[in-house]
């Protein structure tokens, strides 16, 4: 009944009047939602952009592209993409194993995949730094080979691998579950080998999903702070990441410096969010067929 009424009013009064009328007569659930989002999200984001806009463009650009800032983007983004790509391969493999095979303790194996979501990042950083240090459980095997992980850029990479792994697995898993066996079996009966079947039949429709998982993991790794600040030595031009640079700038009361790097990071996360939404729409294309 309500819907038909709005339709009628739609025809008679102009659109903007209906809009304003709707805004005034919002249900209280909407009021709370909008108020909370404005207070918690919109206001802080506006503050960040307003603060950035008080800087002259030239100065903004100078801070955003200073050698130190560029070095932190390099460490943050290149390392995050390397971590996300590695997880793209192994995450897909783990999802495949979880969906297609049965083995003892599989339930526990499945449940513990989410550990990085539940384990506080400070604890993750602490234990990863210990395990991968020169006299740690894993690091002591790598030290004779000349591989040093903790307190280097490779350590940052390890922390990023840890926190972004579940994103790939949990994105790929449900899609793999829904995939029909028929097509694979058809490919086999036509004489395709296992490898060909995987490469030509399973991977193409799965690819957008894997990419979504990789993008989600990448986006999380770019913003990560807690575990990395502990496992890296935070040395400029070596393993200093952008979020830590923001933190250091704030500690020195350099609000302009912190704001500029903050805006760069925020804009990149917004672009990533858009990209992820696009990827998800792309992977859903296969559902309707």
């Amino acid at each position, binding site marked *: 009944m309500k819907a038909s009424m709005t339709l009628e009013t739609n025809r008679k009064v102009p659109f903007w009047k209906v809009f304003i009328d709707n805004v005034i007569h919002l*249900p*209280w*659930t*909407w009021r*709370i*939602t909008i108020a909370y*989002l404005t207070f*918690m*999200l919109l*206001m*802080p984001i506006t*503050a*960040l952009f307003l*603060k950035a806009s008080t800087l002259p463009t030239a100065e903004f650009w100078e801070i955003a592209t200073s050698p130190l800032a560029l070095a932190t983007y390099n460490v943050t983004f290149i390392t995050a993409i390397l971590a996300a790509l590695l997880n793209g391969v192994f995450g897909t*493999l783990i999802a*495949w194993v979880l969906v*297609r*095979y*049965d*083995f003892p303790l599989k339930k526990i*194996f499945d*449940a*513990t995949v*989410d*550990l990085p979501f*539940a*384990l*506080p*990042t*400070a*604890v993750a950083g*602490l*234990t990863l730094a210990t*395990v991968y240090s020169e006299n740690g*459980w*894993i690091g002591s095997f790598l030290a004779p080979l000349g591989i040093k992980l903790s307190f280097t850029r490779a350590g940052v990479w*390890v922390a990023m*691998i*840890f926190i972004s792994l579940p994103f790939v697995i949990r994105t790929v898993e449900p899609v793999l579950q829904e995939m029909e066996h028929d097509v694979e*079996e058809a490919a086999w*009966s036509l004489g395709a080998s*296992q490898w060909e079947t995987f490469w030509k039949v399973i991977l193409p429709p799965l690819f957008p999903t894997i990419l979504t998982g990789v993008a989600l993991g990448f986006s999380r790794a770019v*913003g*990560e*702070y*807690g575990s990395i600040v502990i496992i890296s030595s935070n040395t400029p031009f070596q393993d200093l990441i952008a*979020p*830590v640079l*923001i*933190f250091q700038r*704030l500690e020195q009361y350099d*609000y302009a410096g*912190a*704001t500029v790097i*903050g805006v760069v*990071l925020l804009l990149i*996360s917004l672009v*990533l*969010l858009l990209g992820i*939404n696009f990827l998800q729409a792309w992977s859903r294309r296969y559902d309707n067929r």
Partner: protein
Amino acid sequence: MTTDNKLKKNHPQKANWVPGVLIAIAVSYLALVQYIPAINVFFQAFRKGIIPFFANLSTPQFLHAAWLTLLLAAITLPINTVFGLCAAWAITRHKFPGRAIVISIIDLPFSISPVVAGLMLVLVYGKRGWFGGFLEATDLQIIFGFPGMLLATSFVSMPFVAREVIPVLEEFGKDQEEAARTLGANEWQIFWRVTLPSVRWGLLYGLILTNARTMGEFGAISVVSGNIIGKTQTLPLFVEDAYKQYETEAAFSAAVLLALLAVVTLVLKEILERKTHIQDVE
């Protein structure tokens, strides 16, 4: 198992070693990245026995950090429950253009770096921020104080409830609510007697995730708290601080508690996932 057998029957020449190798690779990768580090937390904490462990856990700094962490969770949870339920209800019960955008906006805190979140709060409530003058005049301290930490935790854990409740509400549909309405129930009664019971498992799931994130949050809190020992230090900050002071055992003792929180979270998550799944099937 059944699918595997079926495949084997169809394809006798299919290599048998493939599943074994793939499972081995998967387990090794997870072991290197997750299991060995996780076991290491417990090993390091109890390396010198139970007594030093409890000695580490009875220092005033630790007790205050634990108390503060619990307090933050106790306040953040109800606030985000109210917001999450309202947002989920508003989004699923009204059809409007741009719905996907609103859901993306609610999800935003997940894609914003916690440090950037903390920075934004400093720019609003800090000494030189928007309300800096006003806050100083009224002698209110938000940054470097409990209110700022509360804002930071609420920010980073904001989307969890809405995100878990939205799909349940969508699945559940409006029919029962409308039936209750025609029978003369008012909105409150519908909410308490019809909507809330139907989303209870999803809501609980969202709350568990909110709680884990709230208690474990590090980045945003370390920006806004100033990390004053015995005053604005939560458990994750305590872990980092102790580690930096080379008190590794104290760091790992506190880390064990947070790791146990993670274990409880995973177990409850598993149970609730099953519950919500069963409901879906019905």
